[in-house]
């Protein structure tokens, strides 16, 4: 018998439906796998076995009584950024020590309402600020992938590194994640998994720890395109508690899989060819173009002239919003408190001890660009550039382009504790060069594995779509997946 943990969500759904397996059996298999391997990966920072079994039993009981949700009995991992009632929720920061919210985020509530089972909370970069999962208070996550013939530990990407590693190592059937500048798509590309950042407003942000509110979106990381489609359908909703959530019906994303690409126009932006990009990534991109062409899509060259300004504009807008959002961590209402000689001293000591280096750096940048005398030069300028970045996409879409194909990342996974990246924050920021434009324009983007590099590490392609046209992305990504195949790391753990 194959291991239950090797089943995709769609496969497990069939076996549960046919009563070949129960949710309790499936959940126990995952808990056993986590028990055996989490020490190696550090993907989960809190495992909730009792809750998982209790939820799985309730799911089996519902199934026996004939009530079956879209994710009935499916065990999932949850990024630590999502508020989960009475369960560890710290955005992997020291400053939220001991925090267990008395509420449930809308996205996770939607999953439980559809019958899913929670296995635990997943590691991430502190407050989702990072591209390697190394800024977590709980330590780095190890990528299940290793280069051929090498024993070097690689990062799973970030900030949703725990989510991506847990999905790739089969420590959950699927995982929630969030994406502010690439935090779903970059780790998905580094681990051979599928990750989609939906259009801004598609998933409610309520109950999710805020980083940069105009950019943050939740989405799934899953083993294949179908599983990602199944999960997003459950995660997305309009929510009275988030006024930026959009009141549009959530389509049956799974139904878009297998539809023909005939008549579709795919744009190839010349600005995504950057200096120093490995030749293999260029080759992979050309391969992706050929696959889409073979299935009937029309390929057109396009230009998105403000692409190179997206990352610098992001490093003004995101820290500015973060410095405001993170002002709430003051040692009064939750989390860590370090006593001081007066209240200001208490605030300053608490925040100095509670925030890690990268978080402090971004709060400082954000505070600086919003401070008197600098607001117009930095923040206002960045917001204007953001308008231009969005306009680039609008012009292309108005000209009839249905989706845009780009590489997902400028490299494959790199080593843990890379000295060059540690010495230069900007070098680490460049990881998001292909993904960040999508957040700046509020568009949907999906990363889908498309091949392995010569070291044997996964590489991904990204598809960018029109607002609320996630169906086009699933349909196109599915074509790439069919052509490229799926990628699973050789088990060494």
């Amino acid at each position: 018998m194959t291991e239950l943990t090797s089943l995709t969500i769609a496969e497990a759904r069939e076996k549960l439906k046919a009563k070949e397996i129960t949710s309790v059996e499936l959940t126990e298999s995952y808990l056993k796998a986590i028990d055996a391997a989490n020490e190696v990966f550090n993907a989960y920072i809190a495992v909730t076995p009792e809750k998982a079994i209790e939820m799985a039993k309730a799911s089996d009981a519902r199934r026996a009584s004939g009530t079956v949700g879209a994710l009935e009995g499916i065990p999932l991992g949850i990024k630590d950024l999502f508020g989960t009632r009475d369960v560890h929720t710290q955005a992997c920061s020291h400053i939220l020590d001991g925090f267990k919210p008395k509420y449930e985020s809308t996205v996770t509530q939607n999953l439980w309402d559809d019958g899913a089972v929670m296995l635990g909370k997943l590691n991430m970069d502190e407050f989702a600020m990072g591209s390697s999962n190394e800024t977590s208070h709980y330590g780095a996550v190890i990528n299940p992938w290793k280069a051929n013939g090498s024993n070097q530990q690689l990062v799973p990407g970030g900030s949703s590194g725990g989510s991506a590693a847990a999905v790739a190592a089969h420590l959950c059937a699927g995982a929630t994640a969030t994406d502010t500048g690439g935090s779903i798509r970059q780790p998905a590309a580094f681990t051979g998994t599928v990750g989609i950042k939906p259009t801004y407003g598609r998933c409610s942000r309520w109950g999710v720890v805020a980083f940069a509110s105009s950019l943050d979106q939740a989405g799934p990381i899953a083993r294949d395109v179908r599983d990602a489609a199944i999960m997003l359908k459950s995660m997305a909703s309009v929510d009275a508690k988030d006024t930026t959530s959009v009141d549009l019906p959530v389509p049956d994303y799974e139904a878009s899989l297998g539809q023909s690409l005939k008549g579709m126009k795919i744009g190839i932006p010349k600005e995504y060819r950057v200096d120093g990009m490995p030749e293999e990534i260029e080759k992979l991109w050309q391969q992706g173009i050929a696959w889409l062409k073979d299935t009937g899509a029309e390929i057109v060259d396009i230009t998105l002239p403000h692409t190179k300004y997206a990352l610098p504009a992001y490093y003004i807008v995101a820290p500015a919003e973060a410095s405001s959002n993170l002002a709430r961590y003051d040692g009064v209402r939750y989390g860590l408190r370090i006593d001081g000689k007066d209240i200001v001293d208490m605030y300053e000591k608490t925040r100095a001890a509670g925030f890690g280096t990268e978080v402090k750096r971004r709060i400082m940048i954000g505070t600086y660009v919003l401070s008197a005398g600098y607001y117009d030069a930095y923040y206002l300028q960045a917001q204007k550039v953001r308008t231009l970045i969005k306009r680039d996409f609008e012009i292309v879409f108005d000209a009839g382009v249905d989706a845009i194909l780009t590489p997902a990342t400028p490299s494959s996974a790199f080593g843990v504790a890379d000295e060059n990246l540690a010495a230069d924050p900007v070098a680490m920021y460049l990881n998001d060069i292909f993904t960040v434009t999508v957040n700046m324009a509020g568009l949907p983007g999906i990363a889908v594995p498309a091949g392995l590099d010569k070291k044997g590490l996964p590489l991904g392609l990204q598809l960018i779509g029109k607002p609320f046209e996630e169906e086009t992305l699933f349909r196109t990504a599915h074509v790439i997946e069919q052509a490229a195949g799926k990628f699973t790391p050789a088990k060494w753990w």
Partner: protein
Amino acid sequence: MSVDLATVKRVARLARIAVTEEDANRMVGELNGIINFVEQLNEVDVSGVEPMTSVTPMDMRKRKDTVNDGNKAAEIVANAPNTDRDFFLVPKVVE
């Protein structure tokens, strides 16, 4: 533009983050690296361009201004480091 040690200390004060002399000195270099990187935005001609305030053009949904939640003081203070009878306790701020 570039930041000096005094600016770093002033910004840290505004952000309510205690910094040691060593932290502040390190941050001067790091923050200048980031500021140099973002300064390329000055090349962009933004004349006549409106700053973006929302990625999706939409009217903010509003709800009726009515009480729809409450009476859960114990839940609200449940995670606080220091409380007394449903109040958050802080060091004395008024003499």
